[in-house]
């Protein structure tokens, strides 16, 4: 089963800056998901993406966030104007497979 690869593993950004988190490369997968985990808290669902469209999103996923698959393989999460409280681990996941296959995560630190 191909793994889910995320880049970068750690990103530090200044408050107010835009960041783009990536799942690369993924091919022949239709379903993608983003989750986040604020330090010491639970893993929270952000958004699911199916067939190049958002299929479901949580209340966390507001206008600050967007997802796309710009080149047919990379799956990106963009945070437009980062806030301190956006500091978290962000996990990409995909199906189908045995359950959900998660990436190793990107640690985003907003300073």
């Amino acid at each position, binding site marked *: 089963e191909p*793994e889910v690869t995320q880049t970068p593993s750690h990103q530090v950004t200044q408050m107010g800056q835009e960041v783009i988190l990536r799942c690369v490369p993924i091919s022949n997968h239709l379903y993608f*998901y983003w989750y986040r985990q604020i330090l010491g808290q639970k893993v929270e669902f952000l958004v699911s993406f199916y067939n190049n469209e958002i299929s479901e999103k949580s209340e966390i996923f507001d206008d600050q966030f967007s997802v796309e698959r710009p080149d047919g393989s990379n799956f990106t999460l963009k945070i437009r104007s980062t806030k301190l409280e956006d500091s978290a681990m962000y*996990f990409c996941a995909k199906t189908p497979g045995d*359950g959900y296959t*998660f990436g*190793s995560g990107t640690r985003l630190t907003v300073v």
Partner: protein
Amino acid sequence: AQRVTQPEKLLSVFKGAPVELKCNYSYSGSPELFWYVQYSRQRLQLLLRHISRESIKGFTADLNKGETSFHLKKPFAQEEDSAMYYCALPREGSYIPTFGRGTSLIVHP
């Protein structure tokens, strides 16, 4: 709305001792429940799901609808079992999992 509760943030046992990681849920309907594990510096991965009724790495979990529980058990803990364990069930009206806050299991030698 669905809810997953893992009441213990930390569970510390000695090698060879029995382990039970608790998970309670609320869900309208018949949920599909999962346990995920995250070893240190590794990705979240599926440990087991209740519909498969299998034992993985010596762990089992039985769905108790009366008590709305899905506790994870292992009769003899090993040091390599030390990890974060997350109970999960789908968001209502969806198949996408919602996770509990996790329980950190530490197995001492």
